[in-house]
């Protein structure tokens, strides 16, 4: 039956598809929609913070916006976008016909939109949506939470389920479906970073599920996990949350490391300097990510021995991270460099992520963190790693692989404009936040003292610029898909290496009917 090899038609194609490319594409579109939603929440936040005083929103709604911005960006935009990339690319990169568990793949995507509909729906419920920050510390998120918190918990459960299924699928695919000859140490780095990420996800998503379940019990079934009045401890919540939350930030950034390790060699026309050390560095970062969680809690009143342990362990992360940065730059050293859009985003990533790494090192120093903690310095730090890290890497990936996916070329000039505008907007937004943070501005406040006014105004202007540049990106992608210049070259970039560049562009619906041989 020839029909088997082509997609079904209409809406049913998307509802019932088990094809990794269809599912990957749906993940990517979904995450972009979430990116725009989380972004518009950020615009509301920055508009309110444009000047001191309350102009646009009430403090209660402001808290809902900061909470939803964080939740939607982390769980709706960044994580699903990299799962989408994994779906699209991993089978192509390892010479597999599809993911190992295609039906589960369909499920792991299709339970996501309802989860986020529920989450977004809480905004319209009595008492408003979640307003306790994306870290949802108890008891603000339990005893003192709005009634919608139950829906929030349900949403978190569903998206956790989706992540776990997605990661099991990735592990099963990478372990079982590599083409003959592709040993582990020949796997592309994106596959390596995702394999490690998938293990992190399987390890920590259940912990998050445990945390929200304990919340649910405290709220509805009279337990007191997080309430001192009943013999519990609010700080327990923070330990459980960050035991999930710290690996979570590496879950977000490791796949980004992976794509950067593809893009920089391609545009340097030179092999990655140290493949093995990249793999080991990724693995060490993943290991360390499990033993540093309490650096988010230096001021919570831990015993000094715990404080010292977490400080030393945290500073250690700088070592493998530095190795990665040196590796990327040494790959460029004595290469033959050109600067198309993916490369610009990759270099932007290296520069800005390094700055985020530096502030990370500063934050790891416990005594100094007593002054940094919960200020805008932290906000600046994690946006340098999350936005300039994960999201720049994501933009780079789309430009890098879009021709392979669609067989059409994107508009280079518009791509470069997207890069420069977002680079400028990003730095204008977040660089001044280092200053206001050091000068004493706490995070998550709707209104601030007068000495912070100038930098906040800059920050807001930068945010509007950064936000607008994403519309340019959307336009460029849509224009490429609909009317980009057709080009059937297998390699989009002359320096790109890997199995995905050996198949036609666009890659056929089922990439391989016979596994390729890897030498």
């Amino acid at each position, binding site marked *: 039956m020839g029909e088997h090899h082509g997609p079904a038609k209409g809406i049913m194609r998307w509802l019932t598809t088990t094809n990794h490319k269809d599912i990957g594409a749906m993940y990517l579109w979904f995450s972009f929609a979430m990116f725009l939603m989380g972004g518009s929440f950020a615009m509301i936040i920055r508009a309110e913070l444009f000047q001191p005083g309350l102009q646009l929103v009430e403090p209660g709604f402001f808290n809902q916006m900061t909470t939803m911005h964080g939740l939607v960006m982390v769980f709706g935009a960044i994580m699903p976008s990299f799962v989408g990339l994994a779906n699209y690319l991993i089978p192509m990169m390892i010479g597999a016909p599809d993911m190992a568990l295609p039906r589960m793949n369909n499920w792991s995507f299709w339970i996501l939109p309802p989860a986020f509909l529920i989450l977004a729906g809480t905004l319209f419920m009595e008492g408003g949506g979640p307003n306790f920050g994306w870290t949802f510390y108890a008891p603000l998120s339990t005893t003192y939470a709005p009634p919608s918190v139950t829906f929030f918990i349900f949403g978190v459960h569903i998206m956790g389920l989706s992540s776990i299924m997605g990661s099991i699928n990735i592990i099963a695919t990478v372990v079982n479906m590599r083409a003959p000859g592709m040993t582990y140490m020949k796997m592309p780095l994106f596959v390596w970073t995702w394999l490690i990420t998938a293990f992190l996800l399987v390890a920590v998503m259940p912990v998050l599920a445990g945390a929200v379940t304990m919340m649910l019990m405290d709220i509805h079934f009279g337990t007191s996990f997080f309430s001192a009045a009943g013999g519990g401890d609010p700080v327990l919540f923070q330990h459980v949350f960050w035991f999930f939350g710290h690996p979570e930030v590496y879950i977000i950034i490791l796949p980004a490391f992976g794509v950067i390790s593809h893009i920089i060699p391609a545009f340097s026309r030179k092999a990655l300097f*140290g493949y093995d050390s990249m793999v080991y560095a990724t693995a060490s970062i993943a290991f360390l990510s499990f033993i540093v969680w309490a650096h988010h809690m230096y001021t919570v009143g831990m015993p*000094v021995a715990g404080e*010292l342990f977490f400080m030393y362990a945290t500073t250690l992360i700088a070592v493998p991270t530095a190795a990665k940065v040196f590796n990327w730059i040494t790959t460029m050293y*004595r290469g033959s460099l050109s600067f198309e859009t993916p490369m610009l985003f990759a270099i932007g990533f290296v520069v800005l992520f390094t700055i985020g790494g530096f502030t990370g090192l500063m934050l790891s120093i416990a005594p100094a963190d*007593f002054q940094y903690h919960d200020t805008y310095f932290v906000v600046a730090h994690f946006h340098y790693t999350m936005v300039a890290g994960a999201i720049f890497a994501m933009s780079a990936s789309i430009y890098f692989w879009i021709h392979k996916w669609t067989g059409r070329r994107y508009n280079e000039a518009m791509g470069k404009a997207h890069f420069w505008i977002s680079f400028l907007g990003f730095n204008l937004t977040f660089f001044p936040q280092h200053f206001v943070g050091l*000068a*004493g501005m706490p*995070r998550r406040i709707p209104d*601030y003292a*007068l000495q912070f006014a100038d930098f906040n105004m800059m920050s807001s202007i930068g945010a509007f610029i950064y936000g607008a540049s994403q519309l340019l990106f959307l336009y460029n992608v849509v224009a490429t898909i609909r009317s980009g210049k057709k080009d059937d070259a297998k390699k989009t970039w002359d320096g790109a290496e890997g199995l995905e560049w050996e198949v036609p562009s666009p890659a056929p619906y089922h990439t391989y009917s016979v596994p390729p041989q890897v030498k």
Partner: protein
Amino acid sequence: MCSKAQLLLKHAMLSLVAFVSVISTSAWAEAERWQVNMTPGVTEIGHKIYGLHMLVFWICVVAGVGVFGYLIYSMIAFRKSKGAVSANFHENTTVEILWTVIPFLILIGIAVPSTTTLLEIYDTDDADLDVLVTGYQWKWKYEYLDANGENVSFFSNLRTPQGEIYNEDDKGEHYLLEVDEPLVLPTNKKIRFLVTANDVLHSWWVPAIAVKRDAVPGFINEAWSRIPEAGIYRGQCTELCGRNHGYMPIVVNAVEQDEFDAWIGERKAKAAQIKELMSKNFTLDEQMAAGQKVYMTNCVACHGVNGEGGVGKPIAGSAVAMGELNGLINILVNGRAGTAMPAFGNQLNDVDLSAVITYARNGFGNKMGDVVQPIDVFNFKQGQ
């Protein structure tokens, strides 16, 4: 050939130095005005933390110059458009070991001073004065723990008026960083803060005296400071604690020991006086006179001089003011949730509360004729 050339060079050098110093001093002054850095504050620990911060900062700057220099050099020198051909090298164990070991050694260099400073921060023993700091949604309560059990305690609320927050009036110099009652502390004494919370998490932070501690309901955290200079130091709550998280500032007023002693003596005397007044039976005239005073400082902004209302509902002719007494006491003690009517139960003492309640029942032509006594308010609170 001593000469013009040399002279010229000397002049050039001098003017360069002058130019650079003018630029850098004015840049420095600008930086001061814009507040781009952490404050070292006034305490010894604060200076140590600042020193650590700058140490790590400069290490990062040096590393950054190295890394970004290497990156920019590579980007310029090895451009394909300039005919660069890529070399074919990868993996170099020596280099890779070097760039692992050097950062590691630097980290050890940082770890040593960090550890000693942290140990000092944690050394809360042998304090001269204990202050219990309790976070409430959304104000702070301070209690001076006294060996004789004569504790002095009070609430500290945001003093910035609503009109400034909602942009109806010009914002004052200390917008959002001003309170009705600052925490008064003696200088040059080791003060131990016992930090806790009544409802949700809060965090008590005053940058200039280098104290930040999370306030956790049900647990007590310790922190300490020794403030060498008299002065006013401002801070804010730094842990998201709900709607008005941005509106619970901290103001510390550090004064010399004798001034502090006088202040706390006054506080104790006043507390004793209130204790005495609690059991007194006031006449209507006494309560009306006292109540008017309380009204004029605490209520007039929202309810108007003649009880005609404004932000708040009118009190003149109000069914609540003239209704059942407990209903009126209730709205004053607990406020009215979801409206601007604040809870005064913890802000005013029972003597003042009974006076203002009497005033609300009998002033503005309400003329209910009954006198509310401090003990009535006390009993109401006990019964809750």
